[in-house]
């Protein structure tokens, strides 16, 4: 393999580290407790038959080893802090440090969810202010911050639809979902007791209006639409879509995962959406944390408001804030307490750092970046849909597949170039998809390096497809055997197993 073209990364010595259990030995300690200041109690006596014998293989290590263990492991990860992370649909943007600082302020981080409202006014104010901001951003009438992630928001939203239609007289049976939709959409519909009906895209990668008209009927509760959709294409006939649904008594749900293309430029509430979720961990920059936590507020129109999960934050006559639990029509709670409050803090800090001008500029840069990549890579990679791109662009591996190089191989190879890959093989409507979402957080230099890398890989796929198929070549481990792992799953460490070579 030639490193000639690789400008962004170099190999460097990196620490190995076993599992923490393999570091453990009896008598090492990473803690010390203060002396007990009340009479000691023999827990074995107090608990009797319920007393525990021992804690098995729980580790025994010192603080120094803990620091090294996790620090070393962290160096095996790629992260936004290290470079572009163009995972389509994931909106991997800069996670501002000030957000982390304010979320850890003592009075916020140490607030008990059941402490009296009187001593929770700061937290309530944050939730209320965030809610107000999100309502103006979405153009909706009411909101809940309770859902813990996007899929959780979807569930909440579809429950709202169910409740609303039930109140109207009939919850109906089906939810329409475009073939380009994210897997959480159909999974959500199923949890809410709806059957899923697939809706085909047209040649432009948008909802086929004719098909929608044909499929829409009194059995259909609503449509779950992502806009811009997972091809990065804005559903230009959105208003017509809403009209078709509404005319037949259905409701329009919008998956707001792609709001980073819209904030400050257009509002779902204005173009006919009835209910939607936001991903604070995408559009509003709360960190992904290796898979979570997230936060998925759900905003809706007036008619759906009575059904929102309880409690909701309300302003009381005396000007103080409080929780309203008295909501008889509510679909119920979707999570204990009030949601992922720490993410609310961060999202509000993000909004304040941006202001209206910054939010608009952010959206513009996100769309600019995606279109720049599209322009530069069009031709090198096949662009299956020619419709205008918003914040992300989806190519296919058709050209490279002719040499046996698939989207998954290209993804592995770009790791050698110092990048995290794009989203692989999604959306399903594009065979061999390369789904690229740069976000606004990438500089022109970083984008050019990415484009150069992608072009170089296209050349490599021509000249040395085998090398690409065996990539990555620069990582600690390469091409882990996922099939074997799933066939005989080893999901936990067990004592007695020798430490494996190379670790």
């Amino acid at each position, binding site marked *: 393999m030639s490193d000639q073209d690789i400008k962004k990364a170099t190999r460097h010595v990196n620490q190995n580290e076993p599992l923490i259990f393999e570091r453990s030995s009896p008598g090492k300690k990473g803690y010390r407790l203060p002396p007990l200041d009340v009479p000691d109690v023999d827990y074995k006596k107090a608990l009797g038959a319920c007393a525990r014998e021992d804690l098995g293989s729980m580790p025994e290590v010192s603080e120094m080893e803990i620091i090294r263990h996790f620090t070393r492991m962290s160096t095996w*990860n790629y992260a936004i802090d290290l470079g572009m992370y163009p995972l389509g649909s994931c909106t991997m943007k800069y996670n501002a440090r000030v957000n982390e600082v304010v979320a850890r302020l003592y009075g916020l981080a140490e607030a008990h969810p059941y402490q009296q409202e009187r001593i929770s006014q700061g937290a309530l104010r944050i939730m209320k202010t965030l809610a107000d901001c999100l309502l103006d951003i979405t153009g909706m009438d009411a909101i809940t911050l309770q859902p813990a992630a996007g899929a959780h928001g979807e569930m909440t939203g579809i429950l709202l639809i169910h409740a609303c239609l039930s109140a109207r007289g009939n919850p109906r049976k089906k939810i329409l979902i475009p073939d380009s939709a994210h897997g959480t959409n159909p*999974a959500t519909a199923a949890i809410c007791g709806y059957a899923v009906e697939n809706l085909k895209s047209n040649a432009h990668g948008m909802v086929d209006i004719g098909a929608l008209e044909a499929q829409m009927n009194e059995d259909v509760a609503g449509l779950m639409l992502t806009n811009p959709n997972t091809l990065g294409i804005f559903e230009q006939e959105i208003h017509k879509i809403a009209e078709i649904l509404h005319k037949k008594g259905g409701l329009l749900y919008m998956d707001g995962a792609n709001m980073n293309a819209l904030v400050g430029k257009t509002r779902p509430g204005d173009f006919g959406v009835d209910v939607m979720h936001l991903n604070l961990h995408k559009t509003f920059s709360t960190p992904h944390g290796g898979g979570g936590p997230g936060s998925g507020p759900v905003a809706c129109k007036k008619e759906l408001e009575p059904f929102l999960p309880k409690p909701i934050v309300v302003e009381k006559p005396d000007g103080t804030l409080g929780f309203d639990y008295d909501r008889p029509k509510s679909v119920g709670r979707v999570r204990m307490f009030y949601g992922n409050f720490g993410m609310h803090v961060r999202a509000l800090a993000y909004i304040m750092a941006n202001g209206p001008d910054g939010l608009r500029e952010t959206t513009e840069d996100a769309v600019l970046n995606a279109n720049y990549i599209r322009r530069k890579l069009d031709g090198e990679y096949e662009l299956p849909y020619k419709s205008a791109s918003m914040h992300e662009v989806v190519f296919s591996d058709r050209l490279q597949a002719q040499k046996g190089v698939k989207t998954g191989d290209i993804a592995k190879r770009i790791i050698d170039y110092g990048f995290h890959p794009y989203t692989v093989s999604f959306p399903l409507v594009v065979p061999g998809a390369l789904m690229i979402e740069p976000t606004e957080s990438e500089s022109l230099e970083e984008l050019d390096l990415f484009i150069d890398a992608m072009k170089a890989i296209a050349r490599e796929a021509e000249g040395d497809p085998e090398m690409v198929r065996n990539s990555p070549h620069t990582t600690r481990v390469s091409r882990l055997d996922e099939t074997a792992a799933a066939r005989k799953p080893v999901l936990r460490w067990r004592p007695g197993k020798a430490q494996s070579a190379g670790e």
Partner: protein
Amino acid sequence: MRYLPKSPADRQRMLREIGCKSIDDLFAPIPAEYRLTRDLKVPRQMAESEIIDYFRRCAEANAAGYAVFLGAGAYHHYRPVVIDSLISRGEFFTAYTPYQPEIAQGTLQAIFEFQTMICELTGMEVANASMYDGSTGAAEALLMAARITGRRAAVVARTVHPEYREVIRTYIQHQSVPVSECGYLENGRIDMASLEKQITDETACVLIQSPNFFGTVEDIPAIAELAHRKGALLAVSIAEALSLGIVKPPVEADIVSMETQSFGVPLGFGGPYAGVLATKEKFVRQIPGRLVGEARDKNGKRGFVLTLSTREQHIRREKATSNICTNQALIATMATIYMTVYGREGLKELASQNLAKAAYAASELGKQGRILFQGAPRFNEFVVQTKEDPYQINERLLQKKMIGGFPLRKFYPELGNAALWCCTEMNTREQIDAAVKAVAQ
């Protein structure tokens, strides 16, 4: 905007390359009538110092430095500083889900360790990578039991956290899984006689919490025996994870759903926390959420990968075990670090201190009111019944910068002036004595 890495010249150059005159050309796909032509109504762009000032003022408008006697599903424990120090490394907190194992071994190995420790603590054979929290985890446990057994009903103890039960009701409302609730006895434990009657041929599972909402440790072997005898599974929800330091793990259960907040996660006004589901190996294909498994790379080196993803929504779509996608990975990592810091001996020692603190407080408060549910073992929570309205007592405590127990009337009207108190290692004897004095007043 200071987060955006573009100069005006960069933007111009890019537009030129794309072949656009202005940025608005790129928004042409949005029909003109829906384009927003005004500024959003959000606060103006602020300096970092202003943002900090704003949130500091909010933090000051919240309690800080109060003695906390509240538990009830969210526990005030000391958080070793290494936790924040380590998870604040960008490589952990600014990474995505570890879809590319070559550059995500840090996250993957941490989760594999999390899964292992959860198994060790709960006595289960497999654990997943996390759920949103304990309440949603409990709901998912119940649905999982229905999938496993093919039965479509459940019995839930009334001593399961009331908000967990609300969440369960929400989750199952369109799943035709009728849920009945089972009461408790004088000693705070589940009413076994009633339970026996409530379990039918259609009962997929019995869901209990232990220590339960009153702080009472349930007799899990007995409940398991009963459930299993009737062909139902036993799902155990654990809200106070630290109890496992000294309380026998629910090895007889089929599914354990645990909230890990006690393990180094800030109270944070209720979130983010992290739930986790653990179960027997034979049920692994019905577990929701992500799983990390061991794998070998092309050179035979050990590594870790996301595995068994055919259970999940991105593969299975409407047939998935759950719609969960984003989970609580970073919080699970916090819990992993916490469990590592205290470890085998520390969790026991710490849990034992908790028990001693609560025992002391109960004996002192017992002089001012009646301690309910005396007949069964407790961990760090207990219920006090007073003559005076606990809301009134709490008002008085508040004046002295103390947050009293959780009044139970809202969820258990039959208990009258009862409140659920919690003591952890954070409550000094001095605090407890002061609280007792204030209650007595």
